[in-house]
């Protein structure tokens, strides 16, 4: 099984420096890209079927193709690596940036070349201080070796790259809020259209890609689209960083072919549930995805089948809820996070989430009522897709909405017993 993304990463292993990275095939993808036209480089990525790893799984090549090109198109163009990664239960981008910063940088140079960007930013979660340090160091090495800056490797292509630390908001991961934040404005999302590819950072064409997405690009350019397609299972292309947290025996993050069954993640890689605990449900892709349960264990972990099951693959990082965790308490914990992280721009999210939190708190304390439970159940629709300005709110209510579907008894018991049954 090939694991291109993590080939240089391992427990206790320092990130490769430029020489070490190059010794393992690093920057070969870049050289291949620079040997062909930007369009041809973009075509390879299109053909590879690489899809965005930021959560929505949007085809990366297609996203790039919306960037206006040609003589009269606006300049400069920007490329941003989204390393905000504040999704609860998710730590895959951190692994990639800390473990192999050159891989991200190479991916960014190639991507920038394909879309004609001349300036790039690595936008990192504010706590990712080590990642930022390692990026800075790698960028310095690149600058010394003509891999960044003017006329990269004699190709005539110029690209500057900067590291930017977030001020620490979940919403900064939303690509348009990220752009506002980079501009020094409040991190409120922007309306689309216009899409960032047309009018993004400082009003210029901008592509925002997830860190993991970009890390795939060097390997695609090095080994070809077909090779990449074959890495995945079935129709899926490439590998994916999957992870599991909760009471499994060996929680962690692993690079696996896209489309592995959920069961493998929990039982094989996660080592199964800890003794004395049973799996009750799991959030497949971070704190903003719907619960799935035991009946979904044999689904392939890909965007399509998890979506069909009523959830989202999101970041692919499972959060496992066992039978000794109160679902109401777990949902409350997540809602607290999202209510705090709401950017405050639109009404349903800003003022709806605190209400949900209030109702859940009462319920969890055993002070809830049937009427309140009914009110609570109306919120997921009120904060649903299209009703709010961005996708934070619909994501925030996904655990609640699915918990009410799968674990309704637990909610009821809080009212009946006038306390949390889990103690």
């Amino acid at each position, binding site marked *: 099984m090939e694991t291109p993304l993590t080939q240089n990463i391992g427990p206790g292993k320092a990130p490769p420096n430029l020489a070490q990275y190059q010794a393992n095939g690093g920057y070969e993808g870049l050289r291949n890209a620079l040997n062909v036209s930007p369009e041809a480089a973009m075509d390879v990525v299109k053909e590879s079927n690489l899809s965005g790893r930021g959560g929505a799984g949007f085809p990366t090549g297609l996203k790039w193709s919306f960037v206006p090109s040609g003589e009269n198109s606006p300049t400069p163009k920007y490329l941003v690596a989204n390393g905000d990664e504040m999704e609860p239960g998710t730590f895959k981008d951190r692994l990639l940036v800390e473990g192999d910063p050159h891989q991200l940088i190479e991916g960014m140079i190639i991507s920038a070349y394909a879309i004609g960007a001349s300036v790039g930013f690595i936008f990192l979660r504010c706590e990712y201080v080590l990642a930022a340090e390692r990026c800075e160091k790698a960028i310095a090495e690149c600058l010394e070796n003509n891999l960044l800056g003017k006329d990269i490797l004699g190709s005539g292509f110029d690209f500057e790259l900067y590291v930017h630390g977030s001020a620490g*908001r979940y*919403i900064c991961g939303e690509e348009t809020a990220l752009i506002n934040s980079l501009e020094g404005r*409040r*991190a*409120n999302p*922007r*309306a689309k*259209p*216009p899409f960032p590819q*047309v*009018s993004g950072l*400082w*009003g210029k064409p901008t592509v925002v890609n997830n860190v993991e997405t970009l890390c795939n690009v060097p390997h695609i350019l090095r080994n070809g689209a077909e090779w990449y397609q074959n890495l995945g299972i079935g129709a899926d292309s490439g590998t994916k960083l999957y992870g599991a947290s909760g009471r499994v025996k060996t929680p962690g993050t692993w690079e696996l072919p896209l489309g592995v069954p959920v069961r493998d993640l929990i039982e094989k890689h996660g080592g199964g549930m800890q003794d004395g605990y049973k799996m009750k449900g799991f959030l497949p892709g971070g704190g903003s995805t719907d619960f799935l349960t035991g009946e979904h264990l044999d689904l392939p972990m890909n965007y399509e089948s998890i979506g069909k099951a009523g959830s989202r693959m999101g970041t692919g990082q499972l959060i496992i809820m066992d039978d000794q965790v109160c679902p109401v308490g777990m949902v409350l914990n997540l809602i607290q996070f999202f*209510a*705090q*992280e*709401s*950017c*405050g*721009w*639109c*009404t*349903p999210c*800003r*003022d*709806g*989430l*605190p*209400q949900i939190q*209030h109702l859940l708190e009462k319920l969890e304390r055993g002070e809830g009522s049937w009427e309140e439970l009914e*009110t609570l159940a*109306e919120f997921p629709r*009120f904060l649903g897709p*299209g*009703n*709010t*300005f961005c996708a934070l709110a619909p994501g925030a209510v996904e655990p609640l909405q699915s918990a009410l579907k799968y674990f309704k008894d637990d909610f009821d018991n809080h009212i009946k017993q006038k306390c949390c049954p889990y103690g």
Partner: protein
Amino acid sequence: MPTIVIDGEPYDVDGDKNLLETCLQLDKDLPYFCWHPAMGSVGSCRQCAVTQYQDENDERGRMVMSCMTPITDGMIVSLKDEATQEFRDSCIETVMTNHPHDCPVCEEGGECHLQDMTNMSGHTQRVYQGPKRTHRNQDLGPFINHEMNRCIACYRCVRYYQDYVGDTDLQAQGSGAKVFFGRHKDGALESEFSGNLVEVCPTGVFTDKTFSKHFVRKWDLQSAPSVCMHCAIGCNTSPGERNGTLRRIVNRYNGDVNGYFLCDRGRFGYDFVNDQRRLAEPLVQQGDSLDSTDRDDALAQYANLSADCEVIGIGSPRASLEANFALQQLVGEDNFYSGLASSEQALHQTSLTVLESTSALIASLRQVEQADAVLVLGEDILNTAPRLALAVKQATKNLGLNMAADARIPSWQAAAVKNLAQNQRSPLFMLTPAATRMDSIAQSCHNDVPANLARLGMAIANAIDGGAPGVNDLDDQEKELVAVIAETLKGASKPLVISGSGCFDVAVVQAAANISRALAAENDKAAIHLVLPEVNSLGLAMLCSKKPEADLNAAMKRTVDQVNGQAAVVVLENDLYRRAGKGLVDDFFDAAQSVVVIDSFHNDTTARAQLALPAATFAESEGTMVSSEARAQRYFAVHNTEGYVASSWKWLAELNKSVSWTHLDQLTAACANSSPLLAGITLAAPDREFRLNDQKVARQSHRYSGRGSATAHISVNETRVAQDDESALAFSMEGRQSNLPPALQPGIWSPGWNSNEAINKFQDEIGGHLKGGDPGIRLLDKATAGTQSGWFDSIPQKSMPGSQGYRLVPLHHIFGSEEFSSGSNAIAQRSPKPYAALCAADASALEVDQQGWLKVELNSGQWTLSVAVDDSLPRGVLGLPSGLTGLGGLQGAAYGGSASISKTQSPVIASDQTSGGGE
């Protein structure tokens, strides 16, 4: 024209608008908060949701925010669909969870968009029982209150303040449900336009602090259509009165003039009307004092004082056309003088000549906003004509709008337009004596003394059109500036030149005229706007245009030289000590046999009167004013006069035995007949005979509390309401409330729309003209070819400041430089203390710093003033604030000249100020 279907009905609609605007324009009620007609859409409040269907077969539809949805031909939508109705209801319910529900004590109540939208969306039952978030409120200065707990986080305030106006000291802070709208710390808001927050905010967070001081419920206010008295722009206002006290001013929409916004001087400057210094009764000199008397005695006194002598009339740019005309008729044309010093008279007459014969458009504020390149020559518009400055700020956004159009982003997509344009702006050039707060949005700025600015202006005209006189001895830097400005204006599709009398320099106005003429030769969209200082400066100039030499100095000279001791002088609403040096005015009054003053206030001039007649202010009288765009506008009494107070025109009509003017309309007509220039003024508003279905127009809303109830604990006797014989308006709640001609509309109200947001119902399109036409009538516009002027060809000498003493330049202050508003407490709190400004190099040469004091000596007097270092001033230039009460005796006339200054000690006693009022 696209056709769309709303709830089954097809409509032909304007494709440039968004769906919310379209629905409102079709007179549909759809709730909204964050959208604002002047600021476009951002989609944050989610209140305007509607259902859109893919086609006829789509039965479920999809919810969209109407304010963020462009019109497409054939689109099918529903406002009544249950799902979105329910959503709109939930949205209100959600936004109200933190709202204090304090309507009974909230000053917004009754005129509250949140109340209206809550009713409209059907939310009645509060379910949430949890705690509410609370905020600490801030002291934002003398103008507005801050009660953040009422906030619904619609972001209108910060979008208005930052994006529309361009100021930065009001910010959204924090995030989530705790988001806070305020300053980084307590303190007065810096913007000159902060007062509009009161109307922009849909809730009671920002309310009018001056109104709070004498608050009454808004439905208990009596209102009338009025015009702002505080500069020559002529913004339309709706003042509100109760029990004889003027309580507040709000904006009255005029699609050509002020649109949705006023400046803070206009909104908060009204309180002078309620001032202790009002003249309440006629005063007659008895020995050394002025004693009150009654009307009949006053009239008899006048007959005595004016018997067997020449009567000289002194007019005023702050009095109506009718009052000035009545005075002119009383004393005869030969004895009527404008009341302006010669230098200002010359300025105003030059401006009038330019406007009369211009080949360029005379720009209304709407046209100003459409300009794509603006040159401001000499005028500190932010302080002399503030609302004009706000319009210029909008003009600089046209580049962004054009960029957006190219990128197919609709103009109402406010955030997207802003993000695309970033800091790119349409060109604005600021050539002014000192730096202004507009400079940050200008492409380039240049500070110099007026004569040198005029030279630059002349050179710009010459660079655009070689036929215009040229200027030879410019330095290289000036040449480059001239070339850039000329190129830019020439290349623009709607270039605009703004200048005015603020520099007190005729050459500056002439230079602006040359530029506009040069531009207009090639471009029929080229425009000019000349700022004048006072509300009726242009009207007075028109009235005096047949005898421009008849100014205040001529009146003084004639009285002293020729008719010494033989003349009665009648001064109309004019404190002559603000117009000319104290010595001159004293001599004038000494030489007069008697002085009769008609004014609303005690001032230095009334102190010299043998007879003072108490005049109504704008709030209790009616008349016509001509704004700087030559728009004649009628204002109407908000409430009746009390006691012996009467409109100036009424006093003058009574004094005049040879006419029988019983109504303003007769005077207006006579004034219109007196000069072709003024012929149009009768059309400014419907006359007193006007009726709608035999009814007058009610000044009071139908919700006005019963007349008796306010005093019912004392007496239930109901007195007859005051009668208004001068207009088609009634001091009553009885009468027409709807379908009014815009010029007679006292305030804005529509069923279900109790706040100013109701304006949507009165426009021909959102943000457009009022149905029935914007009030006022233009007296001048682009002149016909034969009557257009030639070039002004006198080019001033290059001025070398510092060569003979310090060159004086005027520095204007929105708060403090204007006479009426300085008499209002809130404005007075914001006005600066008198000071002398000079650049750092000059300050250090004089060995003074910001804490130091200077003795300033002029021909007209001397002052001890604190130092203000302003490094935008060139060396050898001294800036003195214009019009401040503490600088009495310093008039416009002084500004052409020079001063000698020296370091001095801090003054210990006020009498150090040898001249004028003092503080």
